[in-house]
């Protein structure tokens, strides 16, 4: 089992990828998932996080099979 980590828009450009599958060993929160994937870049202050397509926060617990997404403030409409 794995966790799917996704990046959108300017954040995807910045981290250089759009999706990554990670094992959940030692990863308990969304923040852990970011650190695991992009250890060289601190989380931008305005970054948003969604877990399973619902807005969440960086300290929310994630579990096997979850989809964790990181993105900048939205600008649609």
């Amino acid at each position, binding site marked *: 089992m794995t966790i799917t980590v996704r990046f959108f828009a300017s954040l995807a450009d910045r981290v250089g990828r759009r999706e990554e599958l990670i094992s959940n060993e030692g990863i308990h929160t969304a923040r852990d998932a970011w650190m695991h994937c992009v250890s060289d870049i601190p989380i931008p202050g305005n970054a948003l996080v969604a877990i399973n397509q619902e807005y969440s926060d960086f300290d929310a617990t994630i579990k096997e099979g979850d989809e964790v997404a990181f993105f900048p403030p939205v600008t*649609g409409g």
Partner: protein
Amino acid sequence: MRIEVLESAFDPWREVFKQESSLSPGSFGATAVFVGTMRDMNEGDTVTQMTLEHYAGMTEGHLSQLAQQVQADHEILDIVILHRVGTITPGDPIVLVGVWSEHRAEAFEACEKIVEYLKSQAPFWKKERLSDGADRWVEHNTAGPRQVLN
């Protein structure tokens, strides 16, 4: 009710007409519509094209939830929300929000609430191409008319 993310151009007035055609004539007294269209200028720079990205699935799920909530809260008869993704050029419609109700208060309030939600919460992002060929992400949306979100 129709909530859709579209990958090709659409004519908002034709879509409003189509949606309205499915309603019983005489059942609605008020229709409020908002259309957002791509401008050829932003923050003082000429913009030649724009690419709209979205979080497929999350977008549709959130907009559907929102539309159902607004319909229940405001005695709304029908709602259409269309949002374009992909590459567009100035003059292309980006978003359509249409609301039908018996009386105008509900239609105006529901339409503005959906537009403000969409601008502040729905996971869409715009990348602009400037006249010198450079791309830049739009960092934030402009302010809404007043606080309409409860």
